[in-house]
């Protein structure tokens, strides 16, 4: 199997993460359009979360937060974030701008600032993965000589994200018995009738629920093994996409799909290198 080049991998990741952040910006902008947004998510109230106590933020950071995240400024901030993501995507097709450290470092800072509008994060893991990709890629663009290190780090983190999620579940007896999955399904009913019927069927069939829990744990834990099998990258990543689609259907977690897909080129690149090295050693 041919190993994709570092530059083409970075190029593809930058396009995918730009699209993911563009969708996130549109989603948040739509939320700010709700008449009750300024009341529920009033910046004066949220700011108090950072201002009080011994661990308050430095004055310059506080100033930056207020200037960009106040009730009035926030919709404009989101438009800027969306435009930055759009430019990053479109200009990645121009050879002069492809992989130049222009928009992604800015996008990273904007996404980081945005987490402060939501008491640390709006959508937990997907915010974390988006920031990780933006940080790794920005560093790879700023220091092209070390791009392999940053791409490798991103690939390892993305693979680890599946594996550790499976390992912590395996350690938990509630997951091994299937009761944890049953409880999660019961707590978060899906708005889709068909999915809810499937969810209720799983909840009333302990054997099926336990089997499903083991399939999930098996997939997550063995994710790195699947990638290293001969011709295993594409099938493993395809199953991962189905896994995220399932999370969307059952729990409405749409952002995870796009954030994780954006990291797949790094996984592909890393596994291709590992496999070629492994092949060389075995020969």
């Amino acid at each position, binding site marked *: 199997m041919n190993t994709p080049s570092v530059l083409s991998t970075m190029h593809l990741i930058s396009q995918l993460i730009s699209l993911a952040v563009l969708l996130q910006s549109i989603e948040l902008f739509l939320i700010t359009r709700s008449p009750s947004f300024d009341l*529920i998510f009033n910046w004066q109230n949220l700011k108090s979360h950072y201002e009080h106590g011994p661990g308050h933020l430095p004055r310059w950071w506080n100033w930056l937060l207020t200037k960009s995240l106040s009730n009035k400024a926030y919709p404009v901030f989101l438009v800027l974030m969306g435009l930055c993501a759009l430019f990053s995507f479109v200009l990645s097709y121009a050879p002069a701008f492809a992989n130049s450290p222009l928009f992604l470092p800015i996008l990273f800072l904007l996404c980081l600032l945005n987490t402060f509008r939501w008491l640390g994060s709006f959508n937990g893991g997907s915010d974390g993965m988006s920031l990780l990709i933006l940080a790794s890629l920005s560093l790879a663009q700023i220091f092209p000589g070390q791009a392999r290190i940053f791409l490798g780090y991103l690939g390892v983190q993305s693979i680890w994200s599946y594996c550790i999620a499976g390992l912590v579940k395996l350690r938990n007896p*509630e997951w091994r018995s299937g009761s944890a999955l049953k409880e999660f399904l019961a707590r978060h009913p899906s708005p889709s009738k068909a999915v809810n019927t499937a969810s209720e069927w799983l909840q009333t069939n302990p054997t099926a629920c336990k089997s499903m829990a083991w399939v999930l744990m098996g997939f997550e834990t063995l994710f790195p093994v699947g990638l290293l099998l001969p011709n295993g990258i594409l099938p493993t990543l395809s199953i991962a996409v189905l896994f995220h*689609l399932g999370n969307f259907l059952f729990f409405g977690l749409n952002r995870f799909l796009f954030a994780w897909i954006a990291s797949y080129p790094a996984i592909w690149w890393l596994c291709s290198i590992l496999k070629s090295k492994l092949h060389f050693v075995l020969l």
Partner: protein
Amino acid sequence: MKWYQHFRILLPSWKFFESIGHEPLLFYRLGPQGTAWVHASFSPKKFSWGQLIIHPDGNLYWFYISTLQTLTLQILDSQGSQGIPIKSKTTKSANIIQTTASFQILKHWILNHVKGQRKNAPGFQAIKNNNTLVQMKISVKEPDSKDVHDLFTSDWYSLS
């Protein structure tokens, strides 16, 4: 908390759905007469494939869940090891909890929800003017059981 700990999002743990734990629940009731407690759930009611691309309601729901979890942890921290439910106006910790950003978000979320409900829902016909009061209660449900324990009851808040 040191200021740089606010950047912990940069080091995600990836331990998704690690354990089930207690389920935090938010209830509210109307006053001043004090109606029955109503469970506040904001899970999306409609499904479409377009939500795969843009899903503001679904993501707001998860933000609501995480804010409720944060508030529950803050309440449990303030209770210490005694685990005694906190009632409004009885302790200093009740006042502290009600000034937290997470409580304020949930309070306005509920007040806004009640205002939106008053015309349509049958249980809200009592609301005739803005003098109606709203009280909130945070409880936790044991996993795999119907036992619900009250943790915190707020002050009464005016709808106006």
